[in-house]
Each structure stands twice: as C-alpha cells, then as structure tokens.
C-alpha cells in the first residue's frame, strides 16, 4: 500500500543546485516535485496558487544576496507547509533564528542530495532536522562558560525567568537574553530546557534550585 507522495516546492536562485535537487526529488518514488521558484516573489506566488498542495518547501536561505529564505518563513506562517532551509552559512545565530521563526530544518549546502531528501522526509513526517547543521557549526571544542554565564545558568536551572535573573545579577533583562543567546549558539541548543539539561550534565551547575 502506498501513500500519496510528499509534494515539494524548491526555492533556489542557483539553477545548478535547483536542477540537481529537482532531479533527485523527481526520481524518488515517495516524493513529487510541486514546483520550483528562483526568488521569494516566485515562491510566494507558487504557495498562493489555488492548486498548490505543497507539503514541504526546500529553500536557500540566501536569495538574491539577501536572507530572503528567513522572510519566506514569515510568508509561509505556522499553518503552512514545513520549511527546510539550505544554506552555505552555518552561523549559529542564523540557524537559531530559523528555528525561532518556525523552520522545520536547516541543512548546510555541502550536504549530499541523499541527506537533503532524508531531511525532506523527516520534516514531512512532522520532525525537525537541525542537528547536522548545529554540529557542523559548533566546530571548535566548546569552552566552559564564564563565571557570569554560570551564574545565569544556575538561576536558569532554578527556574528563574529572564527578568528575575536580571534582577538577581543586577543587569538588564536584555543583557540576560544576550547571555542566553550566546550560550544557545555556542553549545548548539535551541531551548532553555536543553540548555539547563546540558548545564547539569556537564557539571557547570551542580544543584537544582540552588541560588
């Protein structure tokens, strides 16, 4: 018994990459090419078309020299198809922003076509595909957090909000947010919970609720 193939919209301004991925999608039995677009504008039009029925959008982060792939996320919205971003940038802030804005996955462009198709299947099934990009982005051995960062982590593990952490440490809430963003990016985590688990596991913070 076969279910309907996953319908994929490809967005990339490099014809060579577009062609290569399009061919692979067409060749795969469980995937179908719903369309291709070369710009954010074309992608929006393709998504808005009445007979679109798109399950997954695979888009380059950078279109026409701008980070339009991220803007595509806003255009697709929460209820739209899953968006898998491809990028030659593996900078953690971009990956985290993609996650925050609702991307279902983020792959580095040097990935094999097979990896891309696997990620398409994963996000079509409701999963996420970030780990490979994160692992590549965190190339250097992670260093220990600074003393100030450990103070932030202790309060975070104790369940404090950013506001409370700021008050306790005598810094602005925005400074706390900044500390957390850097910790997220440095250790390749995407949520406060993940960060707290990591801090306890690595022994940076020893007791729950201490502070």
């Amino acid at each position, binding site marked *: 018994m076969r279910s309907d193939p996953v319908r994929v919209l490809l967005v990339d301004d490099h014809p060579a990459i577009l062609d290569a991925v399009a061919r692979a999608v067409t060749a795969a039995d469980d995937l179908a090419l719903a369309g291709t677009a070369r710009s954010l504008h074309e992608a929006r039009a393709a998504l808005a078309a009445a007979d679109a029925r798109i399950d997954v959008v695979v888009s380059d982060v950078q279109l026409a020299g701008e*980070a339009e792939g991220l803007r595509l996320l806003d255009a697709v919205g929460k209820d739209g198809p899953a968006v898998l971003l491809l990028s030659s940038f593996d900078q953690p802030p971009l990956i985290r922003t993609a996650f925050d804005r609702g991307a279902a996955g983020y792959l580095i462009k040097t990935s094999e076509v097979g990896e891309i198709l696997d990620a398409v299947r994963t996000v079509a099934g409701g999963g996420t595909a970030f780990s490979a990009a994160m692992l590549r982005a965190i190339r250097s051995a992670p260093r220990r957090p600074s003393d100030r960062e450990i103070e932030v982590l202790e309060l975070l593990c104790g369940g404090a909000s950013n506001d409370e952490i700021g008050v306790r440490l005598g*810094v602005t809430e925005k*400074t706390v947010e900044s500390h957390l963003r850097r910790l997220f990016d440095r250790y390749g985590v995407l949520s406060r919970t993940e960060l707290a688990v990591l801090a306890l596991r690595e022994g940076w913070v020893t007791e729950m609720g201490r502070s």
Partner: protein
Amino acid sequence: MTRALRLAAVATIALAVASLLLRILNPFAAPPPSASDLVPHLWAVAAIVVIALTNTWAPTLAWCAAVVGSAASALAVSGMIREYRATNGFEPAPVLGALVAIAVMVPIAIAAAYATADGRRSRLAVALAWGSVAVLGTGLAASFVGRTLGGYDGGVPYSVWLAVLAGLTVTGLVRDLRPAFDRTRARVTAEAGGGHRAAGPLSVLRVFVDELVPGREAGRAEAAEDERGRIAADLHADVLPSLRRALAEAEAGGTVERLAADLRMAVDDVESLLVARRAIVLEELGLLAAVEWLAERVEDRSTVRVEIEVAPVDADGGRPPRDVERAAFRVAQLALDNVVRHALGSHARVSVAASARSVRLRVEDDGDGPPVDEAAATRAGRRGIADMRAEARACGARLDVGRDADGRGTAVELAWPG
C-alpha cells in the same frame, strides 16, 4: 568657498552696509527710525553671521542666508524711499532713486547666481534665471526713468519681486538638495528591506537630514578608498600565505590531512574577511545579534573573553540605519581585534545600546591602554584606531578613544548621532 558664493557674500555685506549708511546719514530727511524699522537691518546682520559660519561646510545655508540678508537690506532701502514719497509727495534725487533700484536688484541677482551656480548650468536654467533678472531689471529701470522724468508713479509690485526671488531660490535649493534626496530614497528603499513596510514620513525626514550632513559624501568616498586598501592588505597578509602553503604542500606531494588543514585555514580567513565586510547576521538580525556572534568568534579564536552588556533603550522597535549598524559593528570588530592582536588584555566588555534614533557602542578592555601617540601608531601600521575613526566619520557618528572608567585599559566608544 566658490567664487560665486564669495561674490554673493560680498554683495550681501555691501548692501547691508549701504542700507545702514542710508539709515544713519538719512538723506531722505526721515523722522528718527522706530524699533521696527531696524528689524530688516538685524536680519541682514544675522544673515552675514550665518554666511561667515557656514560658507565652508554648508554652502546651501550660506546661499540662503545671502538671499535672505540681501532681501532684508533691499526691503529696508525701498521702505525708506516709500516713506519719503508718502511724506513729501515727490521723488527724491535721481541718484538716490537709482541706488534704490540697484539695491532691489541685488538679492534677485544673488538668487539667480544660486540657481545657476557651481557647475549646474543647464542652458534652460541659466536662460530662465538671468532672463527673469533682465525682465525685472528692465521693469525697475523703466519705472525709475518714468518717475524721474515725472508723470509716472507705478513700479514693480512687491509680489512680483518676491515671487521671482522665491522662484530662483527654490530652483537653487532643489538642485542643491537633489543628490541628498536621491541618496535618501536609495537608503530608505534599502532599509525597508524588500519593501514589506513603508518608512514613515518622519523617518524619511530623519534620513534626509542625516544625508544633508556636510562632508558626508567626501567622508564616504574616503572610507571606501580606505576599505579597498584594507581588503588588499588583508588578502595579502592573511589569505595568500595559507593558499601558497597549501599549494606548496600539494606540489610536494604532502598528505591529504596537511593539505586539508591549510585549505581549512584559507577558508577560515576568507570567511573572516567576508564577515568583516558584509555579515549576513548583521544585515538580517541586527547589531546586537552580530556583536554577540562576533564575541563568540573572538572567544573561539583567542583566549580573550568578551562580556556583553545590553542597555535598555526606548522601545521604538526599529533598527538604526544600516550604514550606522555596519560602522558600529566594524568598530566593535576592530576594537576586539586590537585586544586580541596586541595581547592588550584578557577581558573585554562590550556595551550596546541601539535604537532607530541612536546608537552607543562601547568596547573596554583590561590591557595597557590606548597608544600614547595615535599618529605614530597609525604610521607604524597599527591602523585600528584610524580605521575606526574613518568608519565613524562616514556615517556621521562620533568616536572617542581613551582610558576606561578605572583609568586602565582602553575604551573605544562610538556614538551616533555624533
């Protein structure tokens, strides 16, 4: 100061002096002047002060001041002759009448010069400007002759005179401000980011005023030139050696691992260069995110630890103009680079406060302090501070370099508007 502007300034001063002399010598035998009679003379003096203050760096202002100042003097003079006619019922001596006619033409001539000055000579503009001067001049001359010979008491109405004056001045202004307006439009379009939200009239005005800052264009050209030099130097110093090493390694039949390591280093260097020039994190996510990411990069590549402090700003939600963000990012980068390169300290603190209306970025370290002789440091190839100043200047920001609050280490601060 251009020749045309110098002539206009001289004419304005001469007219102001002449009108004051007429008032003081009082050939019209008028009753003593009231306070309100002196107002035009005050305008003229104020205009001369403005010309003196602005002629080198804001020619637009100096020109407008010349028009306003000379017009005030001309009005004072023509007011005197009107009063004379009203009280005496006949014309003053022809020489006085001629003087007044000439005085009234001076501001018109200045405005015409402004409309056509400084290499903006389209034939049509020149013909229109000087044509209207000729018509007006002829009219004044005709009425002067008619009055002097008697039997005629018409003249050129004030409204016509004012209309010609205003028309010429506005022509000059439009031509003067057009480049700034074009730059404003380009910037506003770029900052709207593909146009999903239109900029409000206030922010457009803000950008426009910012673009009017004198010397902005020259500063930009200089900064671009400096930038080209730096890119060449960086390519030479950072990228070329690692590529050459990789090449030598390959030619000598070296191991894949060594080759890969050399190439990775080259890729890393190119990436750093790109980051310095156009960081997509900065463009897309803004100054704070870019500084955070920069701090992470510095910590990855050195033993320097960077703490970031974010000041609360008025929550207008907007981002500063892109060129200011880029300059601030570049200053942060150069300052942290200095900390790393000259092993000046092991801790750096970056304070950021950024909103659509103002940016303050401060980088402090715990090293030995800034170079005592900045010029000597620049000559010796330590261009960091000179480059930071160039970046700040190009976007209209101020850059201060000094000791930090405890009197140790170096503190670099960029403040916009400067």
